[in-house]
């Protein structure tokens, strides 16, 4: 049972393709695990399609009808002399199937001797030059993706059974999508598919009994707040 979901705004941004790469991965993976959010996104896509690609007389879900009509007339009147583009496209043969890594079965990753099947959204990424290898310290291992979203850091994070991350706050927003196993913190306990958003105002100490695998996105390095844990601050660089 998935109890924690992305907000409607996030799902809309996702359907519109307007989030960062890292966020799109998190939302896509959540939707693969969560039928309910997948349905939402599919509905939002229909609305966006009507908005951007419908005839002026159609229902314009998100726009003011007059504006669309004017724009469409302008579009039509200069949509001339497109014959060469039309010829170029229709000269294309039906595409040869491209064999992607996705065709070769699910994306699998192994950490600490355990194999995990990842959501389909990671199929290419996990094999690409944007993925680093697993690096670990104690119970905590991380595989970072270079998503080139400015400061944002996207990672797979594995915490072995009984592991804990020292209490910390977040400078920016942190997204955690739990892919496998369970963990709990001061605010609750979480299972596979749960999508959590933490902002800078909260402190938490995630603990896992059975071990867990998460996909996390943070937009700034973590800062540990407890005196002793400050000694461990370099772990913030490592784990997220």
């Amino acid at each position: 049972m998935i109890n924690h979901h992305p907000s409607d705004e996030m799902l809309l941004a996702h359907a519109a393709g307007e989030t960062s790469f890292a966020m799109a991965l998190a939302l896509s993976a959540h939707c693969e695990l969560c039928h309910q959010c997948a349905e939402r996104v599919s509905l939002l896509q229909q609305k966006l399609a009507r908005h951007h690609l419908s005839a002026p007389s159609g229902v314009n879900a998100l726009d003011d009808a007059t504006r669309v009509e004017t724009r469409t007339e302008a579009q039509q009147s200069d949509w001339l002399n497109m014959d060469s583009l039309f010829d170029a496209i229709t000269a294309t043969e039906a595409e040869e199937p491209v064999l992607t890594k996705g065709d070769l079965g699910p994306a699998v990753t192994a950490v600490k001797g355990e194999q995990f099947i990842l959501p389909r959204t990671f199929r290419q990424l996990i094999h690409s030059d944007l993925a680093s290898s697993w690096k670990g310290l104690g119970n905590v291992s991380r595989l970072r993706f270079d998503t080139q979203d400015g400061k944002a850091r996207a990672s797979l994070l594995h915490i072995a059974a009984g592991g804990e991350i020292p209490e910390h706050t977040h400078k920016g927003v942190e997204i955690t999508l739990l892919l496998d196993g369970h963990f709990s913190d001061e605010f609750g306990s979480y299972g596979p598919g749960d999508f959590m958003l933490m902002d800078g105002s909260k402190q938490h100490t995630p603990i896992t009994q059975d071990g867990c695998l998460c996909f996390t996105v943070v937009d700034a390095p973590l800062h540990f707040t407890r005196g002793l844990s400050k000694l461990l601050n370099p772990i913030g660089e490592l784990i997220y």
Partner: protein
Amino acid sequence: MVKQVQEIDDNSLKQWLLAVANQRDKQAFRALFDYFGPKIRAFGLSRLSQQGLAMDLVQETLTTVWTKAHLFDSDKGNVATWVYTIMRNQCFDMLRRVQHNREDTFGDDIWPLFDSDPASDEFADHKLDNLLAAYLGKLPKLQREVVQGIYLQELSQQELAEKLGVPLGTIKSRLRLGLEKLKSLLEKHHD
């Protein structure tokens, strides 16, 4: 030719797309082209801010419509939504190309174009795996070790280049040749 866009509804779009899928009907495609082209260009202009890039988006999106029309499942959605998802995915990859000089394409991984039933998908994957294992043996050794290294041992191209002591470009070309060969073997099997 200016169309009476008011008269175009979901059903005409569907008939045109089916004619493209089944008969490679150029006239039907011209109707889709004239209907969607200007709208895709307007979307592209707002996202990509350059006329040239917007026209690239038109070309890429409509080429996919032309070449993959047969993959459209009319039971699962309407034509406009299908074209929208193609356009959005393409635009996402184009933005990454423009901003980060990346040639990779993740749009279709993030938003799968063709919903597949997870159960049957898994089964298909399993079957494909077995087939691939059989066909891998038919590749020349140099291509085989690259394909195996990347897909089965999950090495990066760089790691593999170092391991085999050959330039990265060589890995890339062996991989391409190997995959092309595999593809042709698989196609023969499907025929």
